[in-house]
């Protein structure tokens, strides 16, 4: 109890007297903008890493959710704030697709990555009552009968892009039914209202483990430790390798043009936070993998993702504009 009280007190003190003794960055509390709503994957990532990063920085980070337009609202807020490193954006992969989907003029090129924190994988899941025991069953059935219902979270979302991969490789199409996200889609899949849905590993791992869903393949080149019995997609269809690695990720960003030393301070604070055992535990349980890329490595990662995702969306017919208009290179086959 004493600990709790001291905890409450110190947090309050920190907030009230948010004036720092150090002259160097950061000398006041920071603002963290989360691009998705409370309770989502991005929100969980932000709330798990921030308390540890705060300690490393010696400053408070005040978190706020600013959801809307697939995170474009929060991205706009960041870009409209000064490039001083005091405003952070906690985001997911979405800005890679804003331009081709016509959501916003912004993209990762307007942001400076501090850290690519956690990466996830996508699993092709089916309802266990369906006859599809393997990935081949599903592909064959989809070729024979075009009426399989596939859950989806909207154009440009992960299930959509995964569907686009399947369309590109096998030429198969599904009857897409749109849900408000991974979670509601997984619920409908368990209820049998759709037959198949590509789901993030973090959403599906517990359902697969308990037999509520059947995982057919993971969209990776190697099996994932969380699901040792589910094959990697390249074991069955090696042609998927051209799109991989690909999957959801969560990262921390600042506005482009932020001074290098500030970026470095932030990057090292967040990188150190990733090695905290509490954060590692969270990553393991939430079905993700640590990425930890910073600096040039992170920029490269973002460019590769943008190229894969935007061309897939474009080739599937979901894009408003061609990625070529924005000089996004086509992925190498």
């Amino acid at each position, binding site marked *: 109890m004493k600990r709790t009280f001291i905890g409450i007190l110190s947090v309050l003190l920190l907030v009230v007297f948010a004036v720092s003794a150090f002259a160097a960055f950061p000398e006041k509390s920071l603002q963290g903008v989360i691009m998705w709503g409370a309770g989502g994957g991005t929100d969980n990532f932000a709330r798990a890493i921030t308390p540890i990063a705060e300690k490393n920085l010696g400053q408070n980070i*005040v978190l706020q959710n600013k959801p809307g337009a697939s995170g474009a609202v929060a991205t706009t807020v960041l870009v409209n704030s000064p490039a001083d490193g005091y405003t952070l954006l906690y985001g997911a992969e979405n800005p890679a697709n804003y331009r081709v989907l016509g959501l916003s003029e912004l993209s990762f090129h307007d942001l400076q990555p501090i850290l690519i924190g956690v990466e996830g994988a996508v699993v092709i899941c089916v309802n266990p009552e369906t006859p599809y025991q393997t990935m081949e069953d599903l592909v064959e059935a989809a070729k024979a009968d075009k009426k399989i219902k596939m859950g989806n979270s909207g154009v440009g979302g992960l299930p959509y892009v995964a569907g686009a991969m399947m369309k590109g490789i096998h030429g198969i199409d599904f009857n897409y039914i749109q849900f408000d996200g991974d979670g509601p889609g997984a619920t409908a899949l368990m209820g049998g209202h759709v037959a198949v849905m590509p789901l993030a590993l973090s959403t599906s791992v517990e359902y697969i483990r308990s037999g509520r869903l059947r995982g057919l393949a993971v969209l990776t080149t190697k099996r994932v430790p969380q699901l040792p019995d589910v094959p990697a997609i390249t074991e069955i269809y090696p042609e998927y390798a051209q799109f991989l690695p690909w999957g959801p990720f969560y990262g921390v960003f600042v506005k482009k043009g932020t001074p290098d030393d500030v970026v470095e301070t932030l990057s090292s604070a967040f990188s150190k936070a990733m090695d905290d055992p509490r954060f590692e535990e969270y990553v393991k349980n939430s079905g993700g993998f640590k990425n930890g890329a910073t600096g040039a490595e992170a920029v490269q990662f973002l460019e590769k993702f943008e190229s894969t995702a935007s061309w897939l969306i474009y080739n599937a017919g979901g894009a408003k504009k061609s990625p070529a208009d924005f000089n996004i290179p086509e992925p190498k086959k």
Partner: protein
Amino acid sequence: MEEPKGMAGNGPAQGTSLPAKDISKYVPETRRKPGELGIALVAFLIGALGYYFALGMTSGKFSSPSVFPKLASALIMALSAFNFVKALHRDKPEESSSLGRYLFPADVVVILLLLVAYCVVLPRLHFIASSYLFMVLAMVYLQRGKKILRAVLVSALALAVLVAVFRYLFLVILP
């Protein structure tokens, strides 16, 4: 503008508490209110504009994004046409009640102006200053210039509590 005493039409007697009206059974009023036709027209216009802009959305399928906007707009247009005709069939509003005075009694005008001013000032003076000004001015006006000290103190206290709760407990960064 004069004190809005003895305002036309509705409103319970003054100086007493509001007697709860029995609204479970709807009794249509015989006279239409000033401007009632106008508001039906405005509603119709909202529906028409809603439908017009829905024409630009993807359509052609039963599951298109434009289906519900069109349905709702069409419903609005039909119902407001009905409201318009119904209001037309009622007696004209009383001669004495002008539209301006019905819509905007003095107190409402002042508060509305204060609200608009608040919106304009908010981005410049920020939350604390503009809210304080709004509360003091509104209170002073509503108390008819009396008890100014009370208005100044109560506003300060209320604002202090709000800022404490929102800024320091809920960590909301104020505008």
